[in-house]
C-alpha cells in the first residue's frame, strides 16, 4: 500500500507529529526495560542469564563457548610435548612465529618453542595443522585486546598458560598437507658427522656403522667417520631439520625405489 504524499507530510498534525511520537514512545519504553544491547565487557552473551534470551535463527541458544567448535582463536601450547621441530614456524604464512628458547633444555642445544606475534597472526591454523605432536592447538578464546603493542606477542610460557587453562580446543585438525616423501641419503657425500641425528626432534635417526672400504692402491679414502644416518620413516615427522643442518647437503627429499 503506497502512502500518498499527503500522509508523509511532516507538518500534518496527526500523521506527521502524533503518530511518530507514539511510535518513538513505544520504542523508548521497550528499550528502557529490555534493551536490545548488552554492555559487552561487563555483560556477555556467554553469561547463562543471557542464554535463554538470545537465540540464533535456528532456535539454538547462544551460550558458553558458542563460537563454532572449529573457531580459531588464541593458540594453546603444551611445552612438555613440544619437540622443537620448527614446523609451525615453517608453515606460518605471516611469519609471526619465532622459535625462542624456553627453560628446561640442555644448555648446549636449548629447547625452542614457538612465540606468536598476534599483531601479525591471521589465525589460519596452518601451524596447528602442521604440528606433528599436536602440542600447538587453537582454542576458542577470541578476546585479545591489549593496551601495549608488545603485549600482542605471546611467548611460549604464555601460550602454555592458555593450554593449562583447558579452554575448549578446536578439535578439528585437518590432514597435514601430504608429504609422502622420505628423507633419503646421498651416501657418497656423507661424512658421518652426526649433525642430523643430533638435531632430529624425534630421535628417529640413528647412526649406523658402515664398512670402511679397503682402499685400492694409490686411492685416497675420504676423511670421514664411517657412519651413516638411517631414518626410521614411521617415527619421522618430516620436519626437514636434518636436511637443513647437514653440512654436506647429502640428505634430500625423495621416495624409496
Amino acid at each position, binding site marked *: 500500500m503506497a502512502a500518498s504524499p499527503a500522509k508523509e507530510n*511532516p507538518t500534518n498534525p496527526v500523521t506527521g507529529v502524533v503518530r511518530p511520537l507514539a511510535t518513538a514512545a513505544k520504542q523508548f519504553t521497550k528499550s528502557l526495560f529490555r*534493551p*536490545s544491547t548488552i554492555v559487552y565487557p561487563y555483560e556477555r552473551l556467554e553469561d547463562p542469564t543471557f542464554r535463554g534470551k538470545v537465540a540464533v535463527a535456528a532456535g539454538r541458544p547462544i551460550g558458553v563457548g558458542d563460537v563454532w567448535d572449529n573457531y580459531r582463536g588464541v593458540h594453546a601450547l603444551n611445552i612438555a610435548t613440544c619437540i622443537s621441530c620448527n614446523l609451525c614456524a615453517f608453515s606460518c604464512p605471516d611469519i609471526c612465529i619465532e622459535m625462542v628458547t624456553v627453560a628446561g633444555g640442555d644448555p648446549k642445544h636449548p629447547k625452542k618453542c614457538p612465540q606468536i606475534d598476534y599483531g601479525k597472526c591471521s589465525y589460519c591454523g596452518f601451524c596447528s595443522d602442521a604440528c606433528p605432536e599436536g602440542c600447538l592447538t587453537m582454542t576458542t578464546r577470541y578476546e585479545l585486546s591489549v593496551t601495549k603493542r608488545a603485549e600482542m606477542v605471546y611467548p611460549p610460557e604464555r601460550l602454555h598458560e592458555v593450554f593449562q587453562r583447558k579452554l575448549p580446543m578446536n578439535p578439528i585438525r585437518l590432514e597435514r598437507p601430504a608429504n609422502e616423501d622420505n628423507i633419503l641419503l646421498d651416501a657418497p657425500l656423507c661424512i658421518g658427522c652426526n649433525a642430523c641425528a643430533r638435531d632430529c626432534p624425534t630421535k628417529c635417526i640413528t647412526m649406523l656403522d658402515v664398512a670402511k672400504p679397503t682402499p685400492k692402491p694409490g686411492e685416497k679414502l675420504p676423511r670421514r667417520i664411517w657412519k651413516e644416518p638411517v631414518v626410521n620413516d614411521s617415527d619421522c615427522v618430516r620436519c626437514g631439520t636434518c636436511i637443513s643442518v647437514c653440512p654436506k647437503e647429502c640428505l634430500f627429499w625423495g621416495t624409496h625405489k
Partner: protein
Amino acid sequence: MSGATLYSVSAALSALLLGAVASILPAPVNAWLTSPDVVTGLAVLIFSAILLAASMINTIMLIWFERKMLGRFMDRRGAMHVGYAGLLQNFADGLKLFRKNTFRPREADSLGFYAGPTAYMVTSMILFGVLPISTGWSSGALPLSLLLALAIFSFAPLFIFVSAWSSNNKYSLIGGMRSAAQMIAYEVPILLAVVAVVIVAGSFDLNVIVNEQQNYWFWAPLIVALIVFVAGMLAEMERIPFDLPEAEAELVEGWNTEYGGMLFAFFMLADYVRALIGSILVVLLFLGGWTMPSWVPSVATSFPLAGIFWFMIKTYLVFGLFIWIRASLPRVRTDQLLRVGWNRMIPLALLSIVLAAVVVTVRCLPLVGCVPPLGG
C-alpha cells in the same frame, strides 16, 4: 529557606571572607576591605560564580540526559564508561575540546569570528541571572523580568549571523541566514503566546506569574498557548525537527562549520544553555514553576530546597519532551518551517490570546474548575 535568598547567602559569605582576610592585614587596607562597597562587590561576584557553576553543571547534565535518553529511543544505551553510567563523559569531552587547537580560516573576519561565539555564550548565560529558579533565588523583584528574558533570548540570531558571516564559508552563511529567518519567524508566535500568559497572570514579573499558579497551573487553560510556545521554543533552540540552520545532511554543520575546539564548545554549550532556558521558561510560564499542587503531601514540598528540587524535576521532564520530539520527528523543509510558523502558529497564538481573555473574564472552565480572581 524563606528568609535567606541566594544573594543574602553570598553577601554573608563575602562579609565573612573579607572579615577573615582583613583581620590579618594592617590598618588602612582592612578598613577598605570591610567597607560596604567592597563587600557588595565580592558578594555579586560570589553570586554570579554560584549561578555560573549551577547553570554549567546543569547544562552538562542536560547533555548527559539527552545522550542517555536519545540512546534509549534508538535502542542504544548512550555513554556508559566514564563515570557511573557515563555521567562524566561530557566532562571528558569538554576537556578534550578545551585542549584542542582553535584556528580561523584565512579570509575570516577576526573580530566577528571570535566575538560571535563569545557573545552568543555570554548572552545565553546572562539569562540565568534573570530567571527565578525558586523563591529567594533572584536578588530582587524585576517587574519586567519576562520581557527582559525574552529580549536577551532573542539576541541570538544576531550573534549567530555575525559569526556565520565572519566565517566566510558558504555553509556557514546559509546556516546563519536560515537561523536568522527561523528565529525571527518564531519570535512572533512566542511573544503572542506569552501575551496570553501575561493576560491571565496580570504581570510581566516571573515571580508573580509563578505565584499566580499557586492553585492552578496555566497549562490547562492555556493549552493552545503552550503548544505554540513549545513549538516556537523548538525553533528558537534549533532542535530537531527545526534544526535547519545546522542541517548536517546539507550544510556540514551549519553556521558553526568553521569553528573547532573551544569555540565550537561555546556554541554547543550555549545551545544547551538555551535548551535549558527554554525548558525553564516553559516550567515558569505553564507548569507552575516551583509550586506544587495542593494534593501533593506537604512532606514532599516542605523539605529544604524543595522548590529547586521540584523545579529541576519539571525542567528535566520538559527537556525530556524535547528529546522525545527530537527522536520522533524528521527535519522539515524551510518552506514548511516558515509556513508552519506564519500560517499556523500565529493564528493559534491569536486564538490563545482570545482564550486567555475568556479565562480572565469567566474564571471558570470545564475540567479546570473555577480559579480565584486576579491577585487572590
